[in-house]
C-alpha cells in the first residue's frame, strides 16, 4: 500500500477537430493533454499551473473521468478507472469531486441551495434520514462559512464568493477524498480570493482532503500547494515541491513564468530581471516538434531541442524537469539568448473552447440559428 491516492499514467486527451456539413470529417486533433504522468499523495495539495489552453482543465477532468482519455490510465486508490463505466463509475464518483471556476454557471440557477446540496447525497443514498440530512447540511454550511438560512435561497441571490462556498459545500456533501478545484478563485475579487483560499486550507485540515488545485496564477498555486506541476502545451514540463520550485526553477518556461508574475512590491518590481518570452503560445492543434517550448525558449540549443522531445526526468529528489539542458542551465553553462518571435497563425479551429458545441453544428440551419 502506497500513499498515492490518484495517479495518471501517460494520459492523453486528443479532441478531434470536425469539419464538413453533411458528413463530419475529422481534419485534425487538438492535443489538449499529450502524455502526462503524475501522482498525487493522500492528504497533499498538488498545484497545476500553466497558461490558458495548456490543458490543465482537461487533465483535471480526465482524472475524474469526466472527459474520456484518448490513451493512458487513471488509477484511483489502487483501482484502475480506465475501463470503468456505468454504475460502478457512478458509485466511484462519490470519492472524487470537483470545484469549478465560474461559481455562477456551475450552480443550477433553478435549484435552491438545499436541493443543490441534497442532490449528490441522494444520488449515493446518503440522505436516508431527513433529520440527519438537515443537520449535516447545516454543519456543512457552517464549515464553509454560510448562514443556515441560505438553504432556501437561490444561487443568484449570493455574491461570487458565497456562490463559490456553495460549490465547495456541494462537493463536500458526498464525503469525497479527492477534490479537483479548477481555478477556484480566479473569478473572484482579490479580497474574496483570500477568504476562499483560507477556507480550502481549513477544510483540508477538517476533512483530511486531497487537492488538485488548478490555476493560472502562480502566486496562488505556490501559496496553497505542497507540490507544483507546471504545464505547457499539453505536457508537464516541471514538477517540484512548492518552495523548491520557487527557489530553483529549472525549466526555462518555469523561469519565464516566475519572472512574469507581477509582485505587489515596487522594490521587487524595480529590481527583478524579466525573462520576456517572445511571441505567443502555439496552437495545441499544431504543437511544435521536439521540445514544445523551443519556439519561445531563450535557452534553446540547435538541433536537439527542435527535434527530440525531452522526457520528464528526475534531476534532484522530487524535482522533475522536461528539458534537455536542465543541468547546464542550473550550472549556468548555457546563457539565455534573444528569440525571434514566430508567427502563430490563429487557425479558426484553434479556438475551440470547452463551451463551444463539440460536434459542430448538426446541420446547416443550426449555424444560422433558429
Amino acid at each position, binding site marked *: 500500500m502506497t500513499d498515492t491516492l490518484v495517479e495518471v499514467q501517460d494520459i492523453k486527451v486528443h479532441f478531434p477537430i470536425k469539419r464538413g456539413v453533411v458528413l463530419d470529417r475529422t481534419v485534425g486533433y487538438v492535443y489538449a493533454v499529450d502524455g502526462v504522468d503524475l501522482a498525487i499523495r493522500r492528504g497533499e495539495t498538488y498545484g497545476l499551473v500553466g497558461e490558458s489552453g495548456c490543458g490543465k482543465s482537461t487533465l483535471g*477532468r480526465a482524472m*475524474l473521468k*469526466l472527459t474520456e482519455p484518448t490513451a493512458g490510465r487513471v488509477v484511483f486508490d489502487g483501482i484502475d478507472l480506465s475501463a470503468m463505466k456505468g454504475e460502478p463509475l*457512478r*458509485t*466511484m*464518483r*462519490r470519492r*472524487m*469531486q*470537483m470545484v*469549478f*471556476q*465560474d461559481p455562477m*454557471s*456551475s*450552480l*443550477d*440557477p*433553478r*435549484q*435552491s441551495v438545499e436541493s443543490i446540496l441534497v*442532490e*449528490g447525497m441522494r*444520488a*449515493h443514498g446518503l440522505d436516508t434520514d431527513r433529520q440527519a440530512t438537515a443537520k449535516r447540511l447545516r454543519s456543512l454550511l457552517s464549515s464553509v462559512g454560510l448562514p443556515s*438560512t441560505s438553504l*432556501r*435561497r*437561490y444561487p*443568484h*441571490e449570493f455574491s461570487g464568493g458565497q456562490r463559490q462556498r456553495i*460549490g465547495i459545500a*456541494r462537493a463536500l*456533501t*458526498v464525503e469525497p477524498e479527492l477534490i479537483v478545484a479548477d481555478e477556484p478563485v480566479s473569478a473572484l475579487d482579490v479580497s474574496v480570493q483570500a477568504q476562499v483560499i483560507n477556507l480550502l486550507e481549513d477544510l483540508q485540515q477538517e476533512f483530511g482532503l486531497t487537492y488538485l488545485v488548478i490555476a493560472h496564477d502562480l502566486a496562488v498555486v505556490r501559496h496553497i500547494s505542497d507540490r507544483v506541476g507546471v504545464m505547457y502545451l499539453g505536457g508537464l514540463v516541471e514538477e517540484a515541491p512548492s518552495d523548491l520550485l520557487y527557489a530553483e526553477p529549472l525549466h526555462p518556461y518555469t523561469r519565464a513564468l516566475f519572472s512574469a508574475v507581477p509582485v505587489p512590491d515596487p522594490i521587487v518590481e524595480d529590481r527583478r530581471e524579466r525573462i520576456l518570452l517572445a511571441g505567443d503560445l502555439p496552437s495545441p492543434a499544431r504543437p511544435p516538434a521536439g521540445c514544445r517550448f523551443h519556439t519561445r525558449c531563450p535557452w534553446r540549443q540547435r538541433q536537439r531541442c527542435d527535434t527530440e522531445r525531452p522526457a520528464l526526468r528526475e534531476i534532484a529528489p522530487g524535482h522533475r524537469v522536461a528539458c534537455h539542458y536542465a543541468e547546464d542551465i542550473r550550472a549556468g553553462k548555457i546563457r539565455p539568448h534573444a528569440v525571434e518571435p514566430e508567427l502563430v497563425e490563429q487557425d479558426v479551429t484553434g479556438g475551440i473552447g*470547452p*463551451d463551444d*458545441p*463539440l*460536434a459542430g453544428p*448538426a*446541420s*446547416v*440551419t*443550426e449555424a444560422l440559428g*433558429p
Partner: protein
Amino acid sequence: MTARTDKIDKLAQHTARSDAGVSLAAAAWRRLRRNPVFLLGAAIVVAFVVLALLAPLLAPHDPAEPMLGDQVVRARNEIPPSQPGHPLGGDQVGRDLLSRLLVGAQQTLLVGVLATLIGLAGGLVLGTLAGALSGWVDTVVMRVVDVMLSIPGLLLAVSIGSLFAQPNQYTVILAVAIVQIPVFARLLRGSMLAQRHSDHVLAARALGVRERAIVFRHMLPNSLGPVIVQATLVLAIAIIEAAGLSFLGLGNPDDRLPEWGQMLGQAQNVIDSHPELAFWPAGCIVVVALGFTLVGESLREALDPKSRR
C-alpha cells in the same frame, strides 16, 4: 462598538433581502410586472381570453341565425348596415356581425391554443430525445426537422391541410400544429445541447447523479425558457396561419361556428363594396397577435440571463 454594529446592521437592512429566497421565476415575474410592454400585451391577451370564454353569454344574438337576411340584396351588393341592436350590422347573409366576432374569438382561441399545445408537445418530445440522447437519434431527428423547416410555414400547413379529404376545425389545428413541431424541437435541442456542456450539468455528473435525473432535473428545466417564449409567439403565428388556411378554403367548411380567418375569407367576395366586413376580423387578428407577441417579447427580456442580478 455595539452602537456601531447596530448602526451598520440598520443600514444593511435597507438592502438586505428576506430569507425566503426568490427563485428565478419569481424574479422574472417582478421584472415583468413593471414592464409597460408586458402590461399592454397582457391586457390585450386577457381581454381576448375573457371575451372568448364568455362569448356565448356576451353575444347578443345567435351567430348562425341570418336574422337580418331580409336586408341582404345580393344583386345590389347590399348588406345590413349598423342599426339598433346590431351595432356592427350584419354579414353577407344577414347574421349579426358583433356576435360572430365574439364567438369567432372563442374558435380562434381554441385553434391557437390547441395548435400551440400540440406543436409544443411534439416539439418537446423530439427535442428532448435529440438533446438528451444525441448520437444517431439526434442526427435523424434533426435532419427531418431541417427538411420541414426549409419549407415556408404557411406552405407546409397548406400542404398538410390539403391532405385531409374533409377539412374541418381539427384538420386546421393539426396542420398548424405540425408546422410548429420542428420549430420547438430545434429550439429545445439547441438549448439542451448548450446545457449539456454547462458547468452545472458537469457538476451534477461529477457528483454521480444519474443520467436520467440530469436530463430531467437540470437540462430540461433550464432549456425551457426560450421554448416558453416561443410558445407565446407561436400562439400569434398559429392564429394567423389558421386564419390563412380558412381564408384559402382549407378551414372548417361549416360556417355556423365562425372563426376569424374564415370570416375574413368569406368577406373577400365583397371586399370592394364592404371593406368593413374584412376589417373587423382582420383587425381582431392583428391586435390579438400583437398582444401575444408583446407578451412573448417581454417574457424573453425578463428571462434573459443577462438581466439577472
